[in-house]
């Protein structure tokens, strides 16, 4: 039989049997004797008698310390007040900033709308919707000049003896013709002689390529390549293409009140 350790006996004493070791103590005389000795020893131990305190002892303690205690409210103000006010200040500053930015944005937007409306005479307000189409045409013109530039580069370096290259050139020329006409008409309307002249010459090249009787042959292609070199059409297209941003800005400024 395993006997209980002294620690288990001590635990048994203070738990008053709650540890469930009572059964063992009943069955084991040796442990029971050890427990009885422990019980006797601990029962004998007494601390020094506790001095009596008067009924108003608590009051006396309070009176002795009350004067040395700061008022908690004041301390809380000093501890928390600074942090609280600082936080509130930041929050208020942020709120003012947000409101200010919001109002400034609204005023700016209102002013922008007002100035735009004021610059347009009442009678011409209806056609004001025209500027967007102009911008679209400008974009189309830039695209058209890009495509034309690429087309002319291909044409310049095309191998006249290769049917595989000639056929796509003809198809591309036909495709460019329609766009070229639109751009040329707009150029005329906008009174842009340089662009009109260049687009005219481009139209001639495109027409010749697209409508060559009997198909585009090597001799015709060689002749077109020579003409391109002599009149510098490719260079002119590149120059016009580089002017597009300036033209766009000019057209945008001019669009105030003008309709294409």
């Amino acid at each position: 039989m395993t006997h209980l350790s002294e620690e288990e006996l001590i635990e048994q004493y203070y738990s008053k049997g709650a540890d469930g070791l009572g059964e063992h103590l009943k069955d084991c005389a040796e442990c029971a004797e050890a427990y009885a000795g422990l019980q006797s020893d601990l029962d004998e131990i007494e601390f020094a008698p506790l001095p009596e305190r008067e009924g108003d002892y608590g009051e006396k303690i309070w009176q002795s310390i009350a004067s040395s205690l700061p008022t908690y409210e004041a301390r809380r103000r000093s501890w928390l007040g600074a942090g609280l006010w600082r936080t509130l200040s930041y929050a208020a500053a942020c709120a003012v900033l947000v409101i200010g930015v919001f109002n400034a944005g609204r005023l700016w937007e209102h002013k922008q709308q007002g100035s735009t409306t004021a610059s347009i005479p009442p009678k011409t307000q209806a056609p004001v919707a025209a500027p967007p189409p102009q911008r679209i045409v400008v974009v189309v013109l830039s695209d058209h000049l890009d495509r034309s530039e690429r087309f002319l580069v291909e044409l310049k370096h095309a191998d006249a003896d290769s049917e595989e290259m000639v056929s796509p050139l003809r198809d591309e020329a036909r495709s460019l013709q329609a766009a070229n006409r639109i751009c040329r008409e707009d150029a005329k309307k906008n009174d842009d002689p340089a662009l009109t002249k260049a687009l005219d010459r481009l139209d001639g090249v495109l027409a010749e390529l697209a409508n060559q009787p009997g198909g585009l042959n090597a001799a015709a292609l060689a002749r077109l390549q020579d003409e391109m070199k002599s009149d510098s059409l490719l260079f002119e297209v590149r120059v016009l293409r580089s002017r597009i941003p300036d033209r766009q800005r000019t057209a945008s400024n001019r669009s105030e009140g003008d309709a294409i």
Partner: protein
Amino acid sequence: MGKNDHEAIRAVLAGEKDAYGALVVRHSQSLFRVAFRITGNESDAEDVVQEAFLRGYRKLDSFESRSNFGTWIYRIAVRCALDRIGGRRLDDFSRVADETDPEQEQVQVADEAAGPDRLLLSGEIGAMQEAALRSLTPTERTAFMLRHMEDCTGEEIGEVLGIPPNAAKQAVFRAVKKLRSRLAPLRVMR
């Protein structure tokens, strides 16, 4: 009681300093009891009670509302009492140690006490017990006192002393073993 304590604490934190008086009146007796058990001195115990309430007041804004104020201020009082006896531990306890033990700050000295017969006859058994109790380390003495007199559990003792419950139980076991060893001569007189 707990609810009243919490109401008083809220009032104190709101600026009603006098509300702390109710807490002092309510818990002074229990604090004096534990302070006296640890210090063994009436004057020291009163100082400990005052100091505990002063510390408690300063830390009141860190008191968690879920806790029990009685346990909280009790723990502070135990700490104050242990701090107080810490300075004179060697003076008071080294004379009654069984053997030299540097870890326990104890030294072996000649036993000048009278024999059991004389002790019994002169009614000094209580003094011997007191001497045996003082031979314990402050932690052992406090743990034993809380277990033996206050009927605290290992968990409660650990909470008050700021040590794990198992360490608190071990402190009680060591205390009991030491006391029994010191008080063994009394057994022959029973």
